[in-house]
């Protein structure tokens, strides 16, 4: 998608895609079949720029045909460079950072007041934690005891202009969320077993919202992209595209890509 459209956010899509796969193909009760069910789970892509991996997962989950992915970056098409409501499976438009957690609080609160079993998953970036609105919502989630809310930070350590710790250090995130009244866990954000174990065991503490600090690698899976901030929104040359595909293909025996290719049985 990114290579063809000559635009996109490669690094963050690769750092977050294992989290998306774990949610859509294992932990969440959210797919095209139950989209109209108010009791289903919800997902908010607060770091809206990591959209290419998100589109690929939504297509694989059956929200729209995979052939539609060719539409990405085409004039008048459905797939913008950030998620919109034109895309089946997208709950709320995003792209401006720091919005998703508050929307998630509203959804989790609605589920609580309606007595529904819905859980709400919100994926944010670590650079995004610099937005003050994130912390307004973090406070409200604890105030209302939203243990049906799971906030995940894709902690790849890099943002557009460099290391998060150097640009604006928002850490230590686990300690900060804990001090805001959240139940906190950390996991390898590329380890599907660790991720699904965390998601499936929420709520971790009754009455407390759940915060998962997912340690990830920006550009994960492509050696020359990993941990390089320039891949935040760089597009690969033809040569780089070929090498990246070769590397990802070679990794198919390594678990993550295999599970990805198999779709882990599809969305429940």
């Amino acid at each position, binding site marked *: 998608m990114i290579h063809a459209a000559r635009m996109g956010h490669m690094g963050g899509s690769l750092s977050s895609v294992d989290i998306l796969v774990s949610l859509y193909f294992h932990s969440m009760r959210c797919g095209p079949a139950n989209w109209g069910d*108010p009791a289903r789970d*919800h997902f908010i892509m607060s770091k809206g720029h990591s959209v290419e991996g998100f589109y690929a997962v939504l297509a694989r989950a059956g929200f729209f045909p995979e052939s539609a992915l060719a539409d990405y970056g085409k004039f008048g098409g459905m797939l913008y460079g950030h998620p*919109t*409501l034109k895309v089946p499976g997208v*709950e*709320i*438009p*995003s*792209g*401006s950072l*720091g*919005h998703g*957690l*508050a*929307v*998630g*609080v*509203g*959804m*989790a*609160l*609605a*589920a609580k*007041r*309606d007595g529904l079993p*819905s859980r709400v998953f919100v994926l944010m970036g670590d650079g995004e934690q610099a937005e*003050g*609105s994130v912390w*307004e*919502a973090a*406070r*409200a989630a604890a*105030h209302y005891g939203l243990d049906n809310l799971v906030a995940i930070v894709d902690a790849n350590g890099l943002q557009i202009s460099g290391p998060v710790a150097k640009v604006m250090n928002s850490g230590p995130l686990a300690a900060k969320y804990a001090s805001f009244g959240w139940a906190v866990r950390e996991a390898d954000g590329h380890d599907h077993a660790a991720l699904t174990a965390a998601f499936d065991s929420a709520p971790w503490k009754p009455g407390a919202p759940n915060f998962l600090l997912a340690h990830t690698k920006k550009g994960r899976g492509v050696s020359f992209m990993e941990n390089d901030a320039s891949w935040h929104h760089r597009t690969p040359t033809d040569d780089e595209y070929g090498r990246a595909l070769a590397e990802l293909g070679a990794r198919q025996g390594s678990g993550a890509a295999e599970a990805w290719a198999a779709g882990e049985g599809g969305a429940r």
Partner: protein
Amino acid sequence: MNAGKASCRHAFSAALLEAARKDPSIYAVCSDSKGSTALGDFEAALPRQYVEAGIAEQDAVGIAAGLARCDKTAFVCGPASFYSARSLEQVKVDVAYAASDVKVIGISGGVSYGYLGSTHHALHDLAVMRTFPGLEVFLPCDAASTAAITAYLAGSGKPAYMRLGRGPVPEVYAPELKAEFAPGRANLLREGRDCAIVAAGEAVQPALAAAAILAVRGIQARVLDCWSIKPFDVAAIEAAAEETGCIVTVEEHSVHGGLGSAVAEAVAQSRPVPMRIIGFPDEWAPAGSSEELFAYYGLTAERIAAAAEELAARAKGR
């Protein structure tokens, strides 16, 4: 005009409570603003449908959008100055772009807060809100119109911004008028063919009083209440231009981007006529009460009448 005064915000909270008693999916979201929005009764009567966000307008709008995604109709209520600036991006993205069933209720709009100063004034809200596609923008002028528009909002299913004043205001719509409030339709309050006075919100009452003054001087002014800033009644404005030959607009808003601009956009492209835009100029207002500021900037019956008289003479002389 001698009928008892009532505040729009109290009319709003009463109408919202009435609607929410019938429909449990109607929620109110406040940001430490239940006093200023007069929603204390709502919280006491329907606590399950009330959400307090604390002093955090961005969070309040985001929460309202989240509630709306889960089949609620969320009224997020607080000072217009904050909701049209601090949380403007949430209104743009989470409400308008997301087509959320959220109503942003800006209380104490314009210069309602008077002496509290420009931090608390909202004289830019119409200008920004009416540029967001899909967001309806309403500006009632009295208690009856506020109640009618609130009832519409409770069932519209669309995003909207409604600005309300703070203090008690005279009745414009007597119950026996049985006025209709259909979005996109201006209400004709007085017929006239010598000039048109187009107003909205709390400027409607002095506009009507100006027309009464003009009638004594032999000038028949048409008065339109453009409470629906968006969708806007372009046809009524074009007809006013065609049939009266000149238009004075009056608004409790910056002269840039509000009602006067909307009228100018309509007539300049189809039936250009002389216009005068009365409102707040490009400066920070001096210390003063709402009434003192209306007087200082010419939003009074006498000054509106004088402007209309001068404009009508100029239009006739062309």
